[in-house]
């Protein structure tokens, strides 16, 4: 295992590359779910405003 992780002396380069890909994907997945949450809040908000408008008229 240790030998495999050492990547024949290239561990730093190999794992820096794969590590950054992992970080990039995690960041994108978080931003995707955050954007979805914001979009759903926005839809709910405009719905409430429309309801208020209906009640007012």
């Amino acid at each position: 295992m240790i030998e495999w992780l050492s990547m024949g002396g290239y561990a730093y380069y190999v794992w820096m590359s794969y590590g950054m890909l992992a970080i990039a994907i995690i960041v994108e997945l978080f931003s995707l779910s955050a954007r979805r949450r914001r979009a759903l809040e926005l839809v709910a908000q405009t719905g409430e405003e429309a309801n208020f408008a209906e009640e007012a008229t």
Partner: protein
Amino acid sequence: MASGLFRFSSPASFFPLAGRLVPVFGWLAALLALAGLYIGFVVAPTDFQQGESYRIIFIHVPAAWMAMFTYLVIAGWSAASFIWNTRLSAMMAQALAPTGAMFAFVSLWSGAFWGRPTWGTYWVWDARLTSTLILLFLYLGLMALRSAIEDPRRADRACAVLALVGSVNVPIIYFSVQWWNTLHQGASVSLTTAPKMAETMLAGMLVMGLAAWAYTIAASLHRVRSIILEREGHTRWAQELMR
């Protein structure tokens, strides 16, 4: 036929379809990535020249392919939004940009960490590297331009122009290793000649390439659903979704 194609070009009917496709492509991406990493780290032999450092290839090349291809897809959707004036095409172009930028960044980053042990430097201003950096800037430019224009329909048209003009950069990246003397090596895989690498190495790279495809499809479909809600959230069908 035409009505069948255009049926899903309305955001209201595409929204549920995209919702069903996201988990399919998401799981496909995960399984392909696992298979590709297994081939890349377990099955593929050590390179006789570069040792284990070459294993960066299994993310570097698929990321670079995906970054270039995604830009062409964005240009295609942009052209479609120009020609048919379909809102969904522009939304798809918008949804693909962040994922394309991510892959462009990963290809530059992994290339730097591959260049250091093989060339002795993280970065050179060589044609392949510089044009890929421009690709990353084009992606960032598309996203910045989008957020700078308030009216979404005007933003669609401005971004479509930038996407179409910027697409000239993709063949420059692809052929840069032939047109100029570059430190970057030439293509190891091409449609016209036999691949210059071991079969298992090639297999690992192709499977990781397919994983990148599936991931991009899943991520962009997930994002386009949010974009549809952001832009069409006031409409009756979107409001009915919330009940």
